[in-house]
């Protein structure tokens, strides 16, 4: 049992820290008031796109998709007019800096479905 607990802890830690390089790189672009942790920012996406980015319903899953595709879509959502079929993401994407979008795209590309 002990092993499984350790394994579990390691797996959970990995799931959350998988993108620490991205977080570290991006921290330079953030205000210095506190450390940037991309998992906190990514968790705001889970509320619609599902925990970890895997959706149980009609909103598209974003976990495990290629980083370049995710980043292209996120940048596309910021445009006016946005790509056809865009709804709420046009309003949400504008709230993030280029660095934040890059960190999010990397985060979700590295989460397994």
């Amino acid at each position, binding site marked *: *049992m002990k092993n*499984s*607990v350790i*394994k*579990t*802890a390691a*797996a*959970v830690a990995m799931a*959350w820290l998988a993108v620490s390089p991205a977080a570290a790189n991006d921290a330079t672009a*953030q*205000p210095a*008031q*506190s*450390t*940037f*942790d991309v*998992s*906190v*920012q990514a*968790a*705001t*996406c*889970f*509320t*619609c*796109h*599902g*925990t970890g980015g895997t*959706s*149980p*319903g*009609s*909103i598209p899953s974003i976990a495990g998709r290629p980083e370049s595709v995710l980043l292209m879509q996120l940048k596309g959502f910021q445009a006016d007019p946005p790509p056809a*079929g865009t*709804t*709420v993401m046009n*309003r*949400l*994407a*504008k*709230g*993030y800096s280029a660095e934040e979008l890059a960190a999010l795209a990397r985060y979700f590309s590295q989460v397994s479905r």
Partner: protein
Amino acid sequence: MKNTVHISRRGVLAAIGSAGAAATLGVAPRRARANTAPAGRVVVVGGGFGGATAAKYLKRRNPKIDVALVEPSEVFVTCPFTNLYFGGLRTFEQQEHNYDELRSLGVNVIHDTAQAVDGKAHTVTLGNGQVLPYDKLVLSPGIDFRWDAIEGYDEAAAELAPHAWKAGPQSRLLREQLEAMPDGGLFIMVAPPNPYRCPPGPYERVSMVAHYFKTHKPNSKILVLDAKDNFSKQGLFTDGWKKFYDGMIEWVPASKDGKVIRVDAKNLTVETEFGEKHKASVLNVIPPQKAGFIAERAGVTNESGWVPIDPHTFESTQVPDIFVVGDATVAAPMPKSGFVANNQAKVAAAAIVAALEGKEPPQAAFANTCYSLIAPDYGISVAGVYAVEDGKLVEKAGGLSPRDASDEFRKLEAEYGVGWYQSISQDAWGTGA
């Protein structure tokens, strides 16, 4: 991996023994902290969007932290999507959620009511007298009503003229009254002043009652008596009402004598500021609100009745080591929504885990999306992204669905609303919907 988590956490619980779990909670972490990895004791009060999410994300971030969740209901009923139950589009049970996933993650779920908090001693006292010590406390108490605000509207009156602004028996009562109402009746809603839980909620409810009337009782009318002069998503609601329910709904703002000051629940009659009386067939009074009572007892509310917080962490500005999330907080420009409660809970959980590990809190991040349904295939939304700048919460971006959007756009937002409910239910409780 998911299976490993479940089996191993259950194994740990089994080893502790279910009867001893609560007692152990107070002792084990201190020992564990002394010789092994850092941990701590966190008590979460309230099992709604904020509390359930906080408990889950504490465990996700550090499974070694002892987490107890105090929630009286074994089955939690959400306010979001209960309006669709009034519209006849969903069953009551589709809004029910249990705590099985939290238990499987090792959260000690205690079905009782937190009656007192001692911020100095760091303890929570439950209804059964049990005392839970904590290192950090999360309060997600939701709202309580100001029963003294409208003359004649108290808890007894709510059994005749339901508020249905906390989901549960009140929601069933309102639905039963709508079903029993004859065609040609008048539904009156008394809409609350700001701030209150779920800003677009009253107007989505009006839309869903209108849908029910249109399909079952087409000669019936709706009168909204409002304590405000404007409301969330007003233009979009007004457009939708005209498109689907033209002539059925009358909205009276405060400036046109919409403010109700007296309720006679027995006679289903209300009286406005300037003395006009209105008699309803079904009367829904949504009273003015404040933070859930445990927040006041914990000493974290201010003169407004709500809870001021540090927006970086959602720790109380008045009592250290008490974190407050959800509707109870003063967090404008973020609305009092389930989405926001879920989001604030994740920020608080990350801050607590960092603090227990002796680290600085990570940078907070917030977003919100609130969907409202006007008709079965016609949804609208408001969205926002928020950040902390110079110690204050600010809206970085956001806005409403476009006023001139196509029917296809509205249909997509109706579908995404359902998708949102499924996702947030999974995120908070691990339950499908």
